[in-house]
Structures are given as structure tokens and as C-alpha cells.
């Protein structure tokens, strides 16, 4: 079997291409549907975690209310504003790219990355403050959810830096430029923003 597959591989030339090969075919057309499979699925997964949060909150209302009072809502609001601004910036980036103003689009993308970095730094500072107060991941179920949801969201923000890097590369290298890739990257960042808005409402605000 192995011989047959290898022979098939060699005979067809498939699989012999090198990823650094200058003669490689251009990146295949990226369909919108592919990224949306991820976005819809990720929203579904987070939706499940939000349901678990609400179920545990309903059974431990006192602990959740007391613990929530120790969160700094100003930090949460600041984070929300930063991400909403970043969403606006990435939308402006897409608009500029559509109008072939790629340098302007790249500036918007860099500003979006800056907002993401501010968000991440604020979040780390907030965690440090909570831990210094003695409220850690294992303190109670509220803080377990708080650290879990904010950490997995922060992981998405960090992945967003890679996604925005792909977007920047698309803007800066004309051979790679594809509007659909730029829009897919922007859609990912909007998802990160949307998830934070729900986390902020559930964890910081919901009484």
C-alpha cells in the first residue's frame, strides 16, 4: 500500500512541491465559508461555557455576588472600550483595503494590534492585582470561571496577533494580497471583540 501511495504521489507530482518553491502555485482562493466555520463553532463553544457559568451562578448566588464585588469594573469597561475601538479600526482597515489604500489600511492594522496589546497588558495587570489580594483560580467557583473565561479569551487575543500579522503581510506584499483574507482576519478580530463584550456583561456586570 505504501509503495502504491508513494508511487501515486510521485506519478502525479502531488506532494513533491516545496513550501519555499518559487514555482509553487499561488495560494488557492480562500472562501469566506472556511473562516466562518471556525467563528460559528467558536461562538458555539463559548456559548456552552457561558451556560455553565449561568448554571453555577444560579446555584451559588451569594458567593458569585460577593466575589464579583471584588472585580474592578473600571478595568472591565476600559478593556471593553479598547476592544470596541480596535473593532472600529479593523473595519476602517478593511474599507481602506477595499479602496486600494493599502498603506492607510496597514496603519489601521497596526493601531488594532496596539489596542490588542493594551488589552492584554491591562488584563495581566488586573490578574496580578486579584492574585495579590489572595483571589486565585482555586479560590471559589466564581474566580474559577473568571480566570478561565478571561484566560481563554486572552488566548484568542494572542492568536489575534498572528491573524493580524497575516492581514498586515497581505497588505504589504502585493503578490499575496487578497481582499477575502483581509476580511477573514477582520472577522476573527470582531469575534474576539464580541466574545469580550459578552464576558464583560456576564462576569463584571450581571447581578
Amino acid at each position, binding site marked *: *500500500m*505504501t509503495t*502504491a*501511495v*508513494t*508511487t*501515486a*504521489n510521485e*506519478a*502525479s507530482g*502531488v*506532494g513533491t*512541491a*516545496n*513550501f519555499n*518553491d518559487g514555482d*509553487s*502555485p*499561488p*495560494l*488557492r482562493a*480562500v*472562501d469566506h*465559508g*472556511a*473562516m466562518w*466555520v*471556525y467563528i460559528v*463553532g*467558536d461562538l458555539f*463553544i463559548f456559548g*456552552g*461555557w457561558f451556560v*455553565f457559568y449561568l448554571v*453555577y451562578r444560579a446555584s451559588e448566588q451569594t458567593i458569585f455576588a460577593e466575589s464579583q464585588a471584588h472585580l474592578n469594573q473600571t478595568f472591565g469597561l476600559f478593556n471593553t472600550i479598547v476592544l470596541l475601538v480596535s473593532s472600529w479600526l479593523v473595519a476602517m482597515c478593511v474599507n481602506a483595503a477595499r479602496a486600494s489604500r493599502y498603506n492607510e489600511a496597514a496603519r489601521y492594522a497596526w493601531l488594532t494590534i496596539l489596542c490588542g496589546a493594551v488589552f492584554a497588558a491591562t488584563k495581566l495587570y488586573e490578574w496580578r492585582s486579584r492574585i495579590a489580594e489572595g483571589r486565585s*483560580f*482555586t479560590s471559589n*467557583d466564581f474566580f*474559577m470561571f473568571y480566570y*478561565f473565561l478571561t484566560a*481563554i479569551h486572552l*488566548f484568542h487575543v494572542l492568536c489575534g496577533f498572528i491573524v493580524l500579522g497575516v492581514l498586515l503581510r497581505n497588505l504589504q506584499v502585493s503578490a499575496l494580497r487578497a481582499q477575502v483574507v483581509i476580511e477573514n482576519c477582520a472577522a476573527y478580530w470582531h469575534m474576539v471583540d464580541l466574545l469580550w463584550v459578552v464576558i464583560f456583561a456576564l462576569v463584571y456586570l450581571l447581578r
Partner: protein
Amino acid sequence: MSEDAAMIAGPPPGGTFPARLAWRWRHHHQIELWIVWWSMPVFYVIFSITYFVLARTMPPPPPHWNVAEIREWIALRHNGIDIGYILFYLTIGLPGWHIGLIATLLKRMSASPAYAYAYIGTMAAGTVPGALLNGFGYSLLALRPERDPAALAFLYEFANLTFVGTMGVFFVASFILVVAILLDRNNILPRWFGFACIWNLTTEFTVAPAWIFRHGPMTWTGGISFYWNMVVYGTWQIMYFVVFYKAINKIASNLPRPQASAESVPLNAFSPS
């Protein structure tokens, strides 16, 4: 397909049945391909029968049980654990066969062949704690349930945590699939499946807290670390089978198919459709 391609004749006329069967085995590559492919579904069926029907070790029991509760749990499953895990150990090698086939597909991608080897390595690393050590723990519990209570509690936690708590290995395996598929220019696997692998990758994160908690949704049998994870994993696994089945089918349809008659088929009918 070239006109002057080398040809394979059918089995020699007038041969005995074993001779014709042997000829077909040597030349009919689809048979080998599909045997390797079906090794994985067969393994999953055996896995499910062992864990859910015979041993009934899935879903996992709670992490906060005392020794008396653990002993009672084992007593109810003693014979099932013995029979189920013996069956499981006999077939534990089957996924290796199948993963070799998946690695062959990864090597056909335009991304570096290193992804194929890395996938084999991570899947092998995942099998040791996630299947073997887990099974050993349950088998040892069933072998001598009257053993020292501390040892019994240790084996109980060891068996359950090695299954759920080491899913992080598959985080890396999923990451390898994601990168290889998204970089691929040969359209070996659909791009949407690369994005779907990120779901699996995300949920593999959530099993890590199983090492910390004994109560709540993050334990080895918790709603988030186990049940919700299984919903996402199960959905992804169905996609995995469908996507890889189609990819393998594409290869199989391009392999030479010996004719029953004296007609011949091209040897180099390998080009992708």
C-alpha cells in the same frame, strides 16, 4: 492518463481460486488501502465497547470518592474491566496503522513533510498516557481490589487523570493539522476543516484544570473539562472521518483496478482527479 501507459492484466486465466485471490491481493491496492482506513473505525468501535459497555469506565466516576466507594465501583465492573481491557490491549496498535495513512496524506500537502512526522509523534505520545496508562490503572484496580487503600486511591486517580488530563497532547496534534491544512496549496483536505480543527484545539485547553480540581465543572468528570469537551470532540471526530474518508477515496479511485476479464488497465493511473 497517458495513452502508452504500462498495463496490468487481469488474473491469469484458468488459475485456482487461491492463486486468483493471491494475484488480486498483490495487485488490487484498493483492498490494502481500505483495510488500513477501516482499522480506525474498527478500533473506535472496540474502544467504545470496552469503555462504555464492558468495563463501563466512561463516563469517568467522580474524583472525590472515598476508598469504600471506589471498591464498590470496581466490584460492579470487575469482569467487564478484565475482558474489556484485554480486548483493548490486543487492538491498541490499530490506530498506528491508520495514523500512518493520515501522515501519507499530510506528506502530499505542499507544507513541509515535517508536519507528517510531527503528527505521528504527537499521536504516539498521546496514546501512551491516554490509552495504555489509563487501561493499566483500571486493570490493576480490578486485579487486586483488596490492596492497600492508599495504593487503591492512587491507582483510581492515576487511571482517570491519565485519560482526561493528558488530552493536551492532542492540542499539539490539532495544531499540526491546522497549520498543515492552512498552508497547503495542493487541496488535499478542505480548508474549512483546518479551521474546524481549531475548535478541537481550543477545547483541549480546558482539560488542564482537571489536575487541580476535585469538585465542580473543571474536574476530570466535570461539565466543562469532560462533557462539553466530548460534545465538541465528537462533532469534530465525525467531520474528521468524513473529510479523511473522502480524501482516501480520492486516492483509491486513482489506483489501478484489475479487470476481471482479460482487459487491462493503466499502471500509472495515479493522477489526481
